[in-house]
């Protein structure tokens, strides 16, 4: 590589990294507890615990759960019912003042599918873990915050790629994984920065890119509403708003008939951003490991309970669905979680050492030019 080429890549690497470093440090630090959010919830006693009941205890009719939910939070309306894969008896319930209320103003709790008992989920509505999540997702700044973080993620990706390009000239005379501990502290950290940076390459790229996709989720969902959903509910464009909803009792069976071999993931009630004003949208997931992350909506008319459309799966919704496990690291058991945390800490070290190396080099340049000025003077 020509030295002018190296200089150009070097300045790309320096500036993309410097701009995104503070944000990336924040993301890596807040992301660390989020990797273990289930475990932390359990430790803090915030995890919803359902009562022990005989295994064959029948489940309540789904409409009864709606009534229990409405009795629990009078004056609010249903937004979502979601099913937890850990315990099929726990129905995650999300309610808000209106169906269209934005997610951060909603209230989340759990209903026991067998008794209708309410189990609070404090960490889904506030507290330490919610603060970590909000900082990580949008820094409490809504869409502008998400878009800023998405841009920082893109800079991070460019920093990684330029770092790989620069790896070659730095390592030409060194064996892989060499760390010069006995020379200067700068060389030691330079070697560590290069080594950790190059070995964490794939993980950092995957987590970076899937983070950008997740940060753009509002836009992805808007695109889905405009294209896919709008086409499916076109016949309802001039229909009057519903005053009464048909009971949801059979909605899951209806969806299962319409999408055989799939499992319900969540129901979006009419008026939420995952449904129309006139439909229950049951989002069905596939039954293999991979397809469990891909959702197919079944739209059910909320007054006649007829299936009016089975959605397609636009590529951007699939990309968003697959981004989640790849970003969270929650799909490979406890060892994967721990490795996720180790790689997260290693990334923090790469970020920190990068700043250190930049400061040291600037100081060296300043010293050299001061010396030159003295000689010239």
């Amino acid at each position: 590589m020509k030295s002018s080429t190296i200089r150009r890549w070097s300045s790309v690497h320096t500036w993309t990294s410097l701009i995104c470093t503070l944000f990336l440090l924040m993301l890596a630090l807040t992301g660390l507890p989020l990797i273990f959010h289930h475990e932390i919830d359990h430790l803090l006693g915030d995890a919803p615990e359902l009562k022990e009941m005989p295994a064959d205890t029948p489940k309540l009719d789904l409409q009864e759960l709606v009534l229990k939910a409405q009795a629990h939070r009078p004056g609010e309306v249903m937004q979502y019912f979601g099913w937890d894969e850990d315990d099929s008896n726990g129905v995650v319930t999300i309610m808000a003042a209106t169906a269209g209320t934005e997610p951060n103003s909603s209230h989340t709790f759990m209903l026991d599918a067998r008794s209708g008992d309410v189990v609070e989920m404090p960490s889904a509505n506030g507290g330490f873990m919610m603060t970590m999540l909000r900082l990580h997702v949008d820094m409490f700044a809504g869409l502008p915050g998400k878009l800023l973080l998405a841009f920082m993620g893109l800079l991070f990706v460019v920093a990684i790629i330029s770092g790989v390009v620069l790896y070659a000239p730095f390592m030409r005379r060194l064996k892989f994984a060499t760390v010069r501990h006995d020379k200067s502290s700068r060389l030691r950290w330079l070697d560590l920065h290069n080594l950790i940076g190059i070995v964490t390459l794939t993980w950092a790229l995957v987590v970076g890119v899937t983070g950008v996709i997740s940060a753009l989720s509002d836009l992805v969902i808007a695109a889905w509403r405009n294209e896919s959903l709008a086409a499916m509910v076109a016949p309802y464009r001039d229909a009057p708003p519903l005053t009464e909803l048909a009971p949801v009792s059979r909605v899951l069976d209806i969806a299962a008939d319409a999408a055989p071999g799939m499992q319900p993931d969540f129901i979006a009630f009419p008026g939420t951003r995952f449904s129309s004003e006139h439909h229950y949208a049951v989002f069905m997931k596939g039954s293999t490991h991979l397809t469990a992350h891909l959702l197919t909506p079944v739209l059910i008319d909320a007054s006649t309970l007829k299936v009016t459309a089975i959605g397609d799966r636009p590529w951007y919704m699939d990309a968003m669905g697959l981004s989640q496990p790849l970003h969270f690291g929650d799909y490979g058991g406890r060892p994967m979680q721990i490795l996720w945390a180790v790689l997260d800490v290693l990334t923090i070290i790469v970020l920190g050492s990068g700043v250190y190396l930049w400061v040291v080099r600037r100081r060296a340049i300043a010293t050299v030019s001061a010396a030159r000025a003295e000689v010239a003077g």
Partner: protein
Amino acid sequence: MKRQSSSLWTVFAMPGFIALLGALGLFAALLGDGGWDALAWVGLGLPAWYGLRGFFR
């Protein structure tokens, strides 16, 4: 010319191997549990091992 490309090959041999194994592992664990997960543990364990080992002489 020949010497430069062969040295580039040497420089990126191990990092390339680690990167590919990592990608394979991340994808494999999406396909199933058990052996598929173990592939991810190896693919992510290798970078973690090399990264941590760098701090010790």
